[in-house]
């Protein structure tokens, strides 16, 4: 029931996962194109970057209470969700356009300057898409787990690491047009980013528990030793960070692929954890927790009778 404090659900977590990964995939493709050269990354990665963002956006529409009114989210430029919606739309379009440059069938595939300009657009817009969920959550003053700038760095790092992992997998499925040493460096970069992610989470938890408010410490303890601790310790930290860090460093495509898949699993777990653990908590007002704990869930006899009142009153 809505009396139990409700918040965002799994569809938003999945949107954050796909949008962040997709945006960062375009960032990587664009940077490599601008500073190394064209054809160094898989065309499949560029396409999937845009496709993942579109998939995330689609899921976000279904998360809305009124999906058919979803166009309204573009209406308030002061809201970060509106900025995110506009930039994500731009990134999806630019990503799809950028992908076309990989295929000679398109007459503009050899327009170098235009490709470079589109690469700039996908880098900038992709970076915003990969970052904005963290900014969105970090600005929510009453959410102790999320509030602060730390969430931005966690989301950006996770977006980048999942994007590198996706690039590794895409490169294995559809090889880049120009076989070089770019893709070969991705596992090492992924390992470095995983180490950074581990360090960021340790410091984030440390700051929340020892250097912030009591509400923030309580929220952090829910991840470390509360109801979400197993998913956090074994899912995100072990399976999603440490294990893939070791696997991607092994110079075997099989191990690297397994590591990349685990990185994606870890990225997904991270979003789910952050959304559910942070959304369940608020800076509670005096007596509010006790008050809400006493509200009906909806399956009580009197609630059923109330919900059936229309049936009884219209069938007398």
């Amino acid at each position, binding site marked *: *029931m*809505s*009396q139990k*404090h*409700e*918040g*965002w659900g799994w569809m938003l977590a999945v949107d954050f996962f796909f949008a962040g990964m997709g945006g960062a995939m375009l960032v990587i493709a664009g940077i490599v194109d601008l500073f190394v050269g064209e054809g160094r990354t898989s065309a499949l990665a560029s396409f999937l970057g845009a496709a993942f963002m579109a998939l995330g956006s689609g899921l976000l529409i279904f*998360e*809305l*209470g*009124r*999906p058919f*009114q*979803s166009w*309204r*989210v*573009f*209406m*308030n430029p*002061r*809201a*970060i*969700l*509106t900025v995110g*919606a506009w930039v994500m739309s731009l990134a999806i379009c630019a990503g799809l356009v950028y992908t076309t440059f990989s295929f000679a069938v398109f007459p503009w595939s050899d327009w170098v300057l235009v490709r470079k300009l589109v690469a700039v657009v996908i880098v900038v817009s992709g970076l915003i898409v990969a970052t904005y969920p963290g900014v969105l959550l970090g*600005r*929510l*003053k*009453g*959410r102790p787990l999320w509030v602060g700038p730390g969430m931005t760095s966690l989301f950006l790092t996770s977006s980048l690491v999942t994007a590198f992992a996706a690039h590794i997998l895409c490169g294995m499925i559809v090889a880049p047009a120009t076989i070089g040493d770019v893709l070969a460096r991705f596992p090492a970069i992924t390992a470095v980013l995983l180490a950074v992610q581990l360090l960021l989470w340790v410091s984030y938890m440390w700051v929340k528990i020892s250097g912030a408010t009591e509400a923030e410490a309580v929220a952090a303890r829910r991840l470390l030793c509360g109801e979400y601790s197993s998913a956090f310790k074994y899912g995100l930290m072990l399976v999603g960070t440490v294990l893939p860090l070791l696997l991607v460093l092994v110079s075997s495509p099989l191990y690297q692929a397994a590591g990349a898949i685990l990185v994606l699993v870890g990225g997904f777990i991270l979003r789910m954890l952050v959304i559910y653990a942070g*959304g369940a908590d*608020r*800076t509670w*007002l*005096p*007596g*509010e927790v*006790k*008050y809400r704990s006493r*509200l*009906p869930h*909806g399956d009580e006899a009197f*609630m059923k009778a*109330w*919900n059936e009142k229309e049936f009884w009153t219209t069938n007398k």
Partner: protein
Amino acid sequence: MARYAMVFDIRRCIGCHSCTVACRTKNELPMDMIYNPVTTVGPTGVYPNLSMVHLPLICMHCDNPPCVDACPTGASQRRDDGIVFVEDKKCVGCLACVMACPYGARVKNHESGAVQKCDFCKDRVDEGKLPYCVLTCHQKARVFGDLDDETSEVYKLVNGERTVRLLAELGTEPYAFYIYG
């Protein structure tokens, strides 16, 4: 221009929940929605020195409302007189405002899909009447009025009594004031 505010004298509140019921009746809320809960803190202390207080909660109609900035559709708005409200037809039910509100003052209507909240009974206020919860409170624990009017009771209470604002440290500048003793 008026600047509406509500003062809660929690020395007077007896936790009868009349305001909650009145609000639900006036706004025809479904069973699973409450705009203005009344929480209870206590009893605390050791017998015979016990204390218990009741805390009426509503939308704080903040001067710096995070919900308005969070709303991507412009459905959440703040009027010039300070009343924060949701324009139902613009709301898509994204819950951005629900998550942004530090006071838990917003609830989703599962039938319509939109988010709803207390709006100080703006339809009544515009007619010069009091919000329904204020009208109902037989203990006069709720006082509503224009804080820009120096002759109003809220002005005298806010400036004459020791009032506090909930979660004032967040910088939302709520316009619900509490007299606690």
